[in-house]
């Protein structure tokens, strides 16, 4: 009797796990597949689940093999699935790129001029397509990218729970105030995923933060909320407002003026104007959570734009991430003013 129950429970559990994984990967492929020409769609849909699970990017480059990329590897894709030699892979033709671009733009390339200028288009589901090609420059700025020669389809995967480990270090336990926080990692280190999850946790209220806060997300590159036509496609919390495709500096000021946020979340600070807007927000009593590319504090201090922010200890918490054990590996959390380590993966023996 007992054995039967155990068997039933374990089988149900296994079924649930399989269904969850199957549905998750298939919904991503279903989303992406709609924007691929039939020939490539067919190849991608035949991929085994083990590849779908880890794939981060699908690369289409003119006259070169169709490729898949993940955090620590890559593979070429051919008619028989994943192939070892590049010569056996499916070679992308100009017609494939043209059709993909047409499907991505919903047959309306004319409506995506701004996106073509910025070099990316966001798809429903938050997936992003980066564009490579010939740039047309007018008055020193890129007017449009024409003659598209390469497409990079980045799969958006929301990893819920990454912020749960970090959030307790970002809250003042006495007053319940959130600290100004800067997330630092090299590219593909999981900064945006962490920002998104923190925004969700802060907005909905979680653990140490019983009451959720109003969060304003200034999403210049549509990466945090993965908005499609202004509507967030990824979960960013019930009290979050998103300014999509809005320059950070203008967006932060707009948020302060009209949306009364308690927390502003924005990614990749890099320009002088961004830093000014962030300090303005901090002086208005709004908590700022942001991110920058980098691997350590010394490296960041060498960047003139960030030097002011870091030397004046505007950020009270610095969170370091890496992709040492997969994207989003939490390396350390440091107190901004005195540089005291609050958490270190090495001291925890991880």
């Amino acid at each position, binding site marked *: 009797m007992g054995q039967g129950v155990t068997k039933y429970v374990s089988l149900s559990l296994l079924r649930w796990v399989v269904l969850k994984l199957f549905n998750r990967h298939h919904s991503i492929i279903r989303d992406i597949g709609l924007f691929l*020409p*039939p020939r490539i*769609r067919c190849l991608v849909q035949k991929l085994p689940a083990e590849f779908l699970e880890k794939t981060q990017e699908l690369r289409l480059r003119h006259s070169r093999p169709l490729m898949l990329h993940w955090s620590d590897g890559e593979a070429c894709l051919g008619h028989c699935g994943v192939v070892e030699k590049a010569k056996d892979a499916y070679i992308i033709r100009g017609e494939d790129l043209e059709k993909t671009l047409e499907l991505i*733009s*919903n047959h309306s*390339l*004319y*409506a995506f001029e701004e996106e073509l200028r910025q070099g990316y288009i966001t798809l429903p589901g938050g997936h992003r397509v980066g564009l490579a090609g010939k740039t047309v420059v007018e008055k020193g700025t890129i007017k449009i990218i024409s003659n598209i020669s390469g497409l990079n389809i980045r799969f958006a995967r929301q990893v819920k729970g990454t912020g749960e480990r970090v959030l307790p270090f970002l809250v003042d336990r006495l007053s319940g105030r959130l600290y100004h926080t800067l997330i630092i990692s090299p590219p593909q280190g999981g900064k945006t995923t962490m920002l998104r999850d923190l925004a969700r946790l802060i907005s909905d209220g979680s653990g140490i933060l019983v009451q959720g806060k109003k969060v304003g997300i200034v999403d210049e590159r549509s990466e945090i909320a993965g908005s499609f036509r202004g509507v967030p496609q990824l979960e960013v919390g019930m009290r979050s407002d998103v300014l999509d495709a809005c320059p950070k500096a203008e967006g932060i000021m707009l948020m302060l003026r009209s949306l009364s946020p308690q927390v502003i979340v924005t990614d990749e600070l890099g320009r002088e104007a961004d830093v000014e807007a962030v300090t303005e927000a901090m002086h208005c009593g709004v908590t700022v959570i942001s991110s920058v590319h980098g691997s350590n504090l010394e490296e960041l201090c060498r960047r003139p734009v960030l030097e002011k922010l870091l030397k004046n200890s505007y950020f009270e918490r610095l969170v370091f991430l890496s992709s040492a054990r997969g994207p989003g590996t939490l390396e350390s959390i440091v107190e901004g003013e005195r540089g005291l380590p609050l958490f270190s993966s090495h001291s925890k023996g991880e």
Partner: protein
Amino acid sequence: MIVKLMGAILIVFTAYCYGCSISSVYKNRVKRLEELLLSLEIFKAEINYGLSMLPEVFLSIGKKLHSPIGSLFRKSEIYMNKQEGFSAADCWLKSLTEMRKELELDEEQFTLLKKMGLIWGKGDKGDQLRQVALMQELLRQALKEAREEREKNEKMWRYLGLLGGCTIVILLL
């Protein structure tokens, strides 16, 4: 005698109707080309001011034009929204082939409509508007020729039908 008279009237009437149906083809061709020009005007307005997506523009044109041209746009919009991976040109061509009979266009006009499919959704706004302007020019030329054809043939086919009917009746009598 009455039966003969009735028969003669029937023959003349049928022949006249046949002539009218052929002449209406010329009339309809002009109408279709005028509607196509109108649809391009709607298209221009939609992408200039609204930046609407192509399927939405097609739906809007389809709703405004209650004719085979409207149906052509609606059909293409349905194919595009099926998201089977086909381009706008493929969807347009598929709808066009299905509606060939209803459109009542001659070979030259049909080829022009096929070419029209190649402009949808190609290039940025400037490119798109330039291509639409070029297509409008070609359609205007086709419309001018279609009007001349109508002038020549519309009345002729109607009279020809009537006279043909009369000739048959005389021969039979």
